[in-house]
């Protein structure tokens, strides 16, 4: 009897495997919508923590009836995984992703996001010229999303415990602070090391911290391997970073302005600076996934998030700079002098001091070379540094 059952099991197994094989994804030719239809009652986003903060999202939910479901990501890789995993295109789960420049091109080329009709975003025409059709979200004139906010990755330190006040990124490679340093758990962190080496080791000839030849890349990786011995930890979620500075386990590190604002609000004596070597930074885009289940609510949100009052409020919640300069008076109304504080009155010169995240690819943007290290090499190197 046993033998017979086994035979049947094999047949059964074959049958179920055939049934369980995923139906080939049928891709519909996506046509740009010409108007935003009625909301679907829900909106599901993958975001950086605070990007749909209730302080400005509540009003949107009330106006449109689109209830926001949030999934916070801690790194660009995690964002990419969330959208690309589950069958791709947001898995039919997620509508929008607030992708930074080091994830946006990957999402476009992986076919996970769809073109957006920019005419449906009324505030777009007011954007800073640099963020209207930037190369990280616009390919061959096709917009794959709406620029959102931008800002620097800063150096944070505890003013009571770190003296004298640091001026250079050398502080996070300094054995003096052994066991008290934190940095983000994100492969793009290699660019921070490259930027530091560009200024401190000119012999390496680093032209662009995201376009590194093998020797330049190896030097940055070696620096980070040295740094690992000095670290408290690599943080993935901003909440963990905040916690470490609150408990005093961490006293110096690389962070985002968001954490600094949260810590200062909690009366932790921290300060952030833009070190003399300059900083890396992000320029984020709301991107619409290919299989978005609530596209109308997504368009409504992209339009809403670009309006000056919302841009101003988000900028102050997260500590970043709007792409819409009309947000300036609203920022000043919410917090005096904040428009100048976040350099929205002089965006061009400020933006030049920030090296924005971008996806590392084989083609170097300089010297016509084709031997730069790509994202996969960055991911592998990051695993060998942190693991």
């Amino acid at each position, binding site marked *: *009897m046993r033998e*017979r*059952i086994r035979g*049947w*099991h094999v047949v*059964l*197994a074959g049958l*179920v*495997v055939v*049934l*369980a094989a995923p139906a080939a994804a049928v891709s519909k030719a996506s046509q740009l919508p010409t108007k935003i239809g009625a909301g679907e009652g829900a909106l599901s986003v993958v975001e950086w923590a605070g990007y749909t903060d209730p302080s400005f999202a509540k009003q949107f939910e009330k106006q449109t009836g689109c209830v926001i479901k949030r999934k916070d990501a801690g790194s660009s*890789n*995690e964002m*990419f*995984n*969330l*959208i*690309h*995993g589950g069958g791709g295109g947001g898995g039919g789960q997620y509508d929008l992703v607030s992708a930074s420049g080091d994830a946006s091109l*990957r999402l476009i*080329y*992986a*076919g996970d996001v769809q073109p957006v009709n920019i005419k449906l975003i009324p505030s777009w025409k007011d954007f800073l010229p640099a963020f209207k059709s930037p190369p990280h979200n616009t390919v061959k004139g096709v917009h794959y999303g709406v620029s959102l906010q931008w800002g620097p990755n800063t150096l944070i330190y505890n003013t009571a415990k770190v003296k004298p006040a640091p001026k250079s990124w050398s502080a996070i490679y300094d054995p003096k602070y052994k*066991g008290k340093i934190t940095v983000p758990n994100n492969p793009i962190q290699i660019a921070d090391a490259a930027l530091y080496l560009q200024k401190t080791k000119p012999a390496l000839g680093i032209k662009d911290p995201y376009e590194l030849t093998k020797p330049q890349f190896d030097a940055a990786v070696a620096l980070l391997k040295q740094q*690992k*011995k000095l*670290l*408290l*930890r*690599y943080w*993935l979620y901003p909440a*963990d970073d905040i*916690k470490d500075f609150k*408990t*005093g*386990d961490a006293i110096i590190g690389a962070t985002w302005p968001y954490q600094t604002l949260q810590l200062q609000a909690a009366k932790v004596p921290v300060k952030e600076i833009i070190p003399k070597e300059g900083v890396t930074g992000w320029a984020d885009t709301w991107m619409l996934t290919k299989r978005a289940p609530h596209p109308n609510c997504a368009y409504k949100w992209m339009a809403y998030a670009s309006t000056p009052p919302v841009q101003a409020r988000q900028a102050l919640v997260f500590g970043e700079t709007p792409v819409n300069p009309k947000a300036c008076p609203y920022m000043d109304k919410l917090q005096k002098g904040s428009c100048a504080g976040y350099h929205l009155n002089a965006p061009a010169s400020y933006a030049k001091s920030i090296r924005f995240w971008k996806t590392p*690819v084989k083609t170097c943007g300089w010297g016509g070379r084709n031997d730069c290290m*790509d*994202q*996969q*090499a960055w*991911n*592998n190197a990051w*695993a*060998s540094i*942190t*693991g």
Partner: protein
Amino acid sequence: MAVDVGRETGPLRGARLSLSGAFWRRPWLRLLVLLLVPAAAFVAVYAASLGAMLASSFWTTDSFTAEIVHTWTLDQYRTIFNLDDPTYLRIAARTIGMAVAVTVTDAILAFPLAFFMAKIAGPRTRSFLFVMILLPLWSSYLVRIYSWTTILSSSGPLNWMLNGLGLPDANLAFTNKGMWIVFTYVWLPFMVLPVYAALERIPGSLLEASYDLGGRGLRTFRSVILPLALPGLAAGSIFTFSLTLGDYITPLLVGGPGSSLIGNIVSEQSASNLTFAAAYAMVPVAVMVLYIALVKRLGAFEAL
């Protein structure tokens, strides 16, 4: 059955009878129909996903589009077993070492506790201890891990207590030692319960017989209790070992630099380089197969 047989019309009755006849003549058919749903679920959920994972581990991923390229290759395994850059071997070794350390610690902690519960404690104490062991499982695993980050932090209760006793700081926050403590705590109930079940089944008369034959405490433990408790220890160790092997949240929250386990790498690469993640995820599967074979060889399953 609520069917009124007397009123049943001809063809329906005939069909029912021939069906029941068919089942009677072919017992395997009856068994097949009974097992169809659970077997299908097993095949679809476990076997098919494992098979898909195994297959993808022999493919590669386009590094720019993250598209899977369906050409058969051993590249992913070459990356893992690359002796020039032993990153992934190091992480695998760390994961297995952590799983062994946690399993051994849990076994040492669980055995006396389970023995006390099974053989010494009265019914009231026993139920109290059961509740105490199960209580943590009622709260979220995340909350318990986060509370451990507070306990271990440099300004946390642990150092406060140590300093109060005149001892120096423990410095366990974000270290592999801290991770070992947290893992040991989180999986302890999964060791206590099977060991308790095994010890509870040992008849008291066997212990008395051992004493009558002159076996003292240690001898009785070695020759009577331990062999009979082995299946429980084996079952518990399979839980603690495999749970540690697959975990990635604990290292993320309490681990420091150099605390990545296999699960962390798999979770980071799961979409951007799915084929590598699949290949790396085969490592714990292979380790578990070897481990279970070893446990079976030691005879731990014979008494089950």
